[in-house]
């Protein structure tokens, strides 16, 4: 099997999808000849032509809205948002139209579209290039939210998202685009949306996380093992909606302690929902309050202060210690 980086896995996934279904196309800013600012779409314009690798005028509301029009007409647009912060102009279409059209038309129309969103920080980019946009949408029913943490899942979840008949926000951990390689099967396969993965088994504490911070959690888990002999179980949610509640609750019931990790600002993040779900379904199992390791309630700072903001393995380790020694 080929060893691919996460961005290569996405590029491969896009090509595989486009080869098997003529209705799949990609669109976005600079995704054509330029191959995308992260090179996710490299080679697609050459292989599939300008009708299926569409460079759009610079207007997210317009091209996300137009993609919805395409989707209801029967195409499957995979739209690249150049950077997370630039999803904001498309907000109205997402919340008021795309998320709702199947429901309001009682199934007459649906929107099989995927928004690929390079997400989160860690690459010391300019302002608005390192955002946690999931929380604009976790309280907004109708949009699936998927977040891979490794090349295998990235391709498999992307193919599942493209196959899915409903709109999917596909959050790509840009910090991991080129940070490591892993084996990725050739050709078509899917990873089911809504199924978490146990990234590391353990018995002493459950760490719930997704996307880029699966790796922060794994690093902290190794430290906890080395320093304290504690085995942390790392649950990679992979999908925020649908959410794999069963896996989450089973793990928490087993370890009786939980840490949630996300780099979104602390107040009102999806991590808070995870705490609430544990409250609902496993409160009496808890030996300690769930610990939250998150960003802070400030905008992502400019690059010199980025490290202040982002959760690191040290903060996760401290959280593990806090729930273990409560």
């Amino acid at each position, binding site marked *: 099997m080929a060893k691919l980086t996460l961005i290569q896995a996405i590029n491969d996934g896009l090509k595989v999808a486009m080869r098997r279904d003529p209705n799949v196309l990609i669109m976005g800013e600079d995704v054509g000849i330029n191959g995308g600012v992260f090179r996710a779409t490299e080679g697609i314009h050459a292989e599939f032509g300008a009708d299926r690798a569409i460079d759009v005028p610079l207007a997210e509301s*317009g091209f996300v*809205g137009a993609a919805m029009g*395409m989707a209801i007409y029967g195409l499957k647009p995979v739209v690249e948002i150049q950077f997370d912060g630039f999803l904001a102009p498309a907000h109205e279409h997402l919340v008021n139209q795309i998320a709702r059209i199947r429901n309001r038309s009682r199934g007459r*129309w649906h929107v099989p579209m995927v928004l690929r969103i390079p997400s989160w920080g860690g690459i010391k980019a300019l302002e608005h290039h390192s955002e946690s946009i999931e929380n604009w949408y976790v309280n907004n029913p109708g949009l699936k939210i998927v977040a891979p943490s490794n090349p295998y899942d990235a391709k498999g979840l992307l193919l599942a998202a493209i196959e899915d008949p409903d709109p999917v926000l596909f959050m790509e951990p840009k910090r991991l685009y080129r940070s490591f390689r892993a084996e990725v099967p050739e050709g078509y396969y899917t990873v089911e949306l809504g199924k978490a993965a146990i990234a590391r088994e353990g018995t002493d504490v459950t760490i719930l996380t997704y996307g880029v911070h699966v790796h922060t959690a794994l690093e902290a888990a190794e430290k906890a093992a080395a320093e304290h002999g504690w085995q942390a179980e790392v649950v990679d949610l992979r999908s925020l909606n649908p959410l794999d509640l069963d896996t989450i609750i089973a793990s928490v019931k087993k370890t009786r302690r939980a840490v949630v990790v996300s780099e979104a600002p602390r107040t009102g993040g999806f991590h808070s929902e995870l705490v609430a779900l544990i409250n609902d379904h496993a409160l009496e199992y808890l030996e300690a309050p769930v610990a939250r390791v998150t960003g802070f309630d400030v905008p992502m700072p400019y690059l010199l202060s980025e490290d202040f903001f982002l959760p690191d393995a040290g903060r996760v380790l401290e959280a593990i210690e806090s729930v273990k020694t409560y």
Partner: protein
Amino acid sequence: MSTTQANALDMEQLFEVRRVLSPDGTLVGPEPDLTPDQLKDVYRWMVYLRVFDQRSLNLSRQGRMGTFAPFGGQEACQVGSAYWLAKGKDWIFPTYRDHGAMQVLGVPTKNIMRYYMGDEQGSKAPEGVNAFPISIPIATQLVHAVGAAWAAKIKKEDTVTVGYAGDGGTSPGDFHEALNFAAVYNTATVFFIQNNRYAISTPNAKQFKTKTIAQRSLAYDIPGVRVDGQDVLAVLQVMKEAVDRARSGGGPTLVEALTFRYGPHTTPDDPKKYRTQEELEEWQAKDPIERLRKYLVSKGIWSDADEQAVYDWAKETVNAAVEAAEAEPRPSVDAMFDYLYEKPTPELERQREYLKAYLAKKSQGEAKTHG
């Protein structure tokens, strides 16, 4: 030529208002290419829609329907904009005030009523009728219209889409983005703007500085046209040109139809707060239905008996729709959970179960209390 000269162009002259019938029904433009049967069909549609509209506003006022947006006065626009579209093929993307055009394309009157009564089922157009659900968020539907036409082009189909908006609908960014995308990708989209002079209470003068909306076409290098929106034959003519051009690969057109709504913006609105009685009467004197009637009479193809018959038919048909709409059961609890995704998520199933249990308990409790 200097800037000053470019900006001194007389837009009202450049975008002269297209007209076929004068308000008294006499021909002032080229005679339209319509058979007598088509002319009568158009007339019947306008009458039907007016009867429907008045009836619906009444139902809303009586509380038998929720807030309703009447189009009375704009019937020529409603009929003329959708009349030439190929059913089962072409698409419309209407606003809350374009349920007349939706019916012309084939949406049952009952659906419109159920929509305004508060049932999502009303937004489900029958198979074969490509009328998108009403869009309330202003101008969003215009980019959807472009997207659908763009998809058709990619699929090499000669589908035409019509995006509707009002004068206020030309202000949001989506108007601009839609026209720009349509122009760049040469999509088969007609932008049909009903300029009824007000966005709720906001008059044209506070909405834009230009004397016309049609001139916005110059910003995108697409054809633009102004038309007398109270003259259904002119609207039909302009739309025929625009639809034909779109279908044959000629790209988008911006149509500005000058019109007026006689009634309130929606049920609770009081237009007397912002419009004068004179202005209303001035427009009523240009009534689109009366105008076409006079023309039909002058052509000798319309009698008083025809007139009586069409109103009788319209009232009966609307009555039947009201009855059918009111006979529909309330949407079920299940319907609230069933349609968001192709398959409800596990979390939705949990929520459905909880709500059903609660409602069952509640109705037991109520049964006990009242029993």
